């Protein structure tokens, strides 16, 4: 377990360092990418392109590496169905991303760079996640009581 925790810590640190190097820790730069009708900043395309290269290789290697190098098994999401929740969630997320110029990774990494505004955003983000859980639990409760 210690080995796994250290590996996860290393991956998170590399990820956070990558966000800082790429300029994606800067909400104004991310907003510059989303400002397609204004003074457009394409940097995010290069970041996404750079990140996809190792991951395309990783998915191919995954076919040959039957078990992860430091864990008993792969636990991966099912990728099939597209539903209203996926689309609705992506729309709401995209709106928030456009409003503040922040998505979860950079917001958390920025806790070390700009602690005050980053903490405000991260606190609101966790509140939004908690709100989702409350709404969804209520809905699944209603489904259960309806069925019984």
């Amino acid at each position, binding site marked *: 377990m210690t080995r796994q925790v250290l590996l996860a810590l290393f991956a998170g640190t590399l990820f956070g360092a990558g966000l800082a190097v790429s300029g994606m820790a800067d909400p104004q730069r991310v907003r510059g990418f989303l400002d397609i009708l204004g003074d457009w900043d394409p940097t995010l395309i290069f970041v996404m392109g750079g990140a996809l290269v190792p991951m395309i290789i990783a998915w191919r290697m995954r076919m040959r590496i039957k078990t992860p190098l430091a864990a008993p098994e792969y636990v991966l999401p099912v*990728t099939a169905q597209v539903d209203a929740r996926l689309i609705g969630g992506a729309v709401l997320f995209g709106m928030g991303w456009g409003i503040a110029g922040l998505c979860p990774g950079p917001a958390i990494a920025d806790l070390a760079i700009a602690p005050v505004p980053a903490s405000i955003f991260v606190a609101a983000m966790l509140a939004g996640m908690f709100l989702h859980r409350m709404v969804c639990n209520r809905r699944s409760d209603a489904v259960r009581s309806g069925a019984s």
Partner: protein
Amino acid sequence: MTATLFPNAMPLAGLVGGLMIGFAAMIMLLGLGRIAGVSGLAARVAGIASEGTPWPLAAAFIVGLPVGAMFIAYAIAPVEARFAPAVTTLLIGGLLVGFGTRLGSGCTSGHGVCGLSRLSPRSLIATVTFIGAGFATVAIMNATGLPQ
């Protein structure tokens, strides 16, 4: 060419930072058998998601994000992080990002980096949707003169 067309762009830094992000996601996949999706890992650490990546691994990854950004800021060069000045912007943006990423099961890292590289139709549709929603949100805010 990008330097003259898009004076603000940082293509090389973006590419290097992107590669670092991609390698970090590769370590999570091939080392630990997990997706480096920041919204899901953050929800797990905060106790909002009751299942998923084992808590110590999720926590180690999340702690690594600010550690990595801080490392770049102190060891390499200052990291720019220009946040929206209004607290309301951060609060509304944060709430939408938190709720939306839970409803849509992922953010820029999970759907954008890990899902696109896997050619997941779900992630492709989510990514196109949140980028489109981000474009529209910034365009509407600019057109209506809404302050950020």
